[in-house]
């Protein structure tokens, strides 16, 4: 990283200042992360005093062979669809939003930016309830609107549309982050490049293709990575809109809390299967690893082609 500079202050004081943060990071960050792996080989519950033991690979055997294959495949499919759906649409729309709000032709940018960022401030629970209300299948405003075109939907309540609604709500909530990061990336592109382009008589499309997009690409890349990891780990919107029982929206991350903490699952605290939950968390971890590797590989190949 960097060379050690001569400290103006005694070392013990500097270390004493670091200690609280370091202790918490190790005790409640690093150690739990490693322990997830260990607990995945146990049948530990979420209740103190209940005896528990190491059960070898039994949790993994249950994951792969003893649960309903249909449920497992549904969860894996939902995880992939949720991840790709969120990552693709969030980044595509965020790119358009950032371009629009960076345009010289537009007034009131600050206001528009603030409105789109607002859901981040409101949080997941408020966001979930707002959309449950708006997407009320029984004559809610959107139900009425699509009714004009002869369509109808159960939205969060129907197996065929629930996951799409979760993806939409997730994007609506997290869009602000992607937008703001893109805007910062756009503003760091030197205006001289555009001025030079103007002298050469480039069209708007050419400017986008040869200046904006290539220079914004590193930012978009960060955004995509954040969206892939974020959407795979995210379960709050799913939990608060469709609950833990609806298999149509269950993802790996949602299953972790379903087994480990019984949130919305309807069963009592005694059923908290934290060892098995840890197994799901480990599989999710591997899943994230594979997803990011596939993405990185695809990006590299694309960059080599250009």
């Amino acid at each position: 990283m960097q060379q050690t500079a001569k400290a103006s202050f005694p070392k013990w004081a500097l270390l004493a200042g670091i200690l609280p943060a370091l202790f918490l990071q190790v005790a409640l960050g690093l150690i739990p992360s490693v322990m997830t792996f260990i607990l995945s080989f146990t049948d530990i519950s979420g209740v103190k005093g209940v005896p528990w033991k190491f059960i070898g690979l039994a949790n993994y055997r249950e994951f792969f062979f003893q649960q309903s294959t249909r449920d497992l495949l549904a969860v894996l499919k939902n995880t992939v669809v949720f991840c790709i759906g969120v990552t693709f649409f969030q980044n595509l729309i965020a790119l358009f939003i950032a371009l629009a709000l960076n345009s010289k032709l537009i007034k009131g940018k600050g206001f528009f930016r603030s409105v789109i960022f607002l859901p981040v401030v409101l949080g997941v629970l408020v966001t979930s309830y707002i959309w449950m209300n708006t997407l009320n299948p029984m004559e809610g405003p959107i139900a009425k609107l699509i009714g004009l075109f002869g369509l109808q939907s159960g939205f969060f309540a129907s197996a065929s549309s629930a996951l799409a609604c979760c993806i939409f709500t997730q994007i609506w909530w997290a869009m602000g982050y992607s937008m703001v990061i893109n805007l910062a990336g756009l503003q760091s592109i030197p205006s001289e490049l555009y001025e030079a382009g103007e002298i050469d008589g480039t069209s708007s499309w050419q400017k986008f293709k040869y200046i904006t997009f290539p220079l914004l690409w590193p930012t978009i890349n960060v955004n995509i990575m954040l969206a892939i990891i974020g959407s795979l780990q995210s379960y709050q919107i799913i939990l608060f809109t469709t609950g833990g029982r609806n298999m149509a929206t269950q993802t790996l991350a949602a299953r972790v809390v379903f087994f480990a903490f019984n949130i919305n699952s309807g069963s009592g605290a005694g059923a908290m299967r934290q060892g098995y939950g840890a197994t799901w968390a480990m599989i999710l971890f591997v899943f994230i690893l594979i997803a990011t590797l596939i993405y990185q590989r695809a990006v590299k190949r694309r960059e080599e082609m250009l």
Partner: protein
Amino acid sequence: MKRHIPLKILIYTFIAILMIVYMFPLFYAFNTSIRTKLDYMANPSGLAKSIHFENYVEAFKKANLSAYVGNSLFYTAVCTTASILMAVFLAFPLSRGYLKIGGLIMGLFLISMFLPDGTIPQFQILLHLGLYDTRLGYMIGMIGGGGTPLLMFYVYIKGIPRDFDEAASIDGCGYFRYMFTIMIPLMKPAIASMAIITAIGIWNDIIRAIIYLSNKKLYPITRGLYVFRGQYQVDMTQQMAALIMVAAPLIIMYVFLQRYIIDGVVAGGIKA
């Protein structure tokens, strides 16, 4: 300029659609909250015929918001202050390169993003320490010196000349006194931005509140809103009234502080 007009119309149309998608649900939530239950049931998508605040009174009692708002303020104040202080005291020696193990410590904080999720073991640790269903147990997992504040302070401190450190130490000013009287005031813009972002995250926490707290006396405000959970059988008018009461302070705060908030996210995102 003439050739820009179609593009301008296109962009404004796009923004107009976005504004509807972002503002309509909020407006509709407010509209629902001021209607009587009967009025709502008769036509959920209609406009409120007259303004009723009964839902607010009912929801305020049902969600027990008066009791929980104090808890939320307490949790947010304590966790934010502790986290920001930790991040400052962590970022300073690392950014200055005063410690040999600085790189190792920074790595320790950065690597946690790439490790398996530790929610379950963290629960086990706090459970076995007897911290389940306590204020401390709920808060301690939300306190930390890492993440975006660490990265932002790390960069920000590099912009503050080292001469200050040397001058202070030559004048016999101790480390902690120096940090509190000189460094922290110099870092005000960065600290303001990070404190607000941290505070929003803690105020909006609901998962930890569900996992760690069963005693109603300890609930934060979000846990009050969560009593309205369920699919569609809940009373939407009351739920939306509770939602507006939880969201209103956030929206008001946001109107005044949005510049700091968005700047903070930019800083975090760029270095992520």
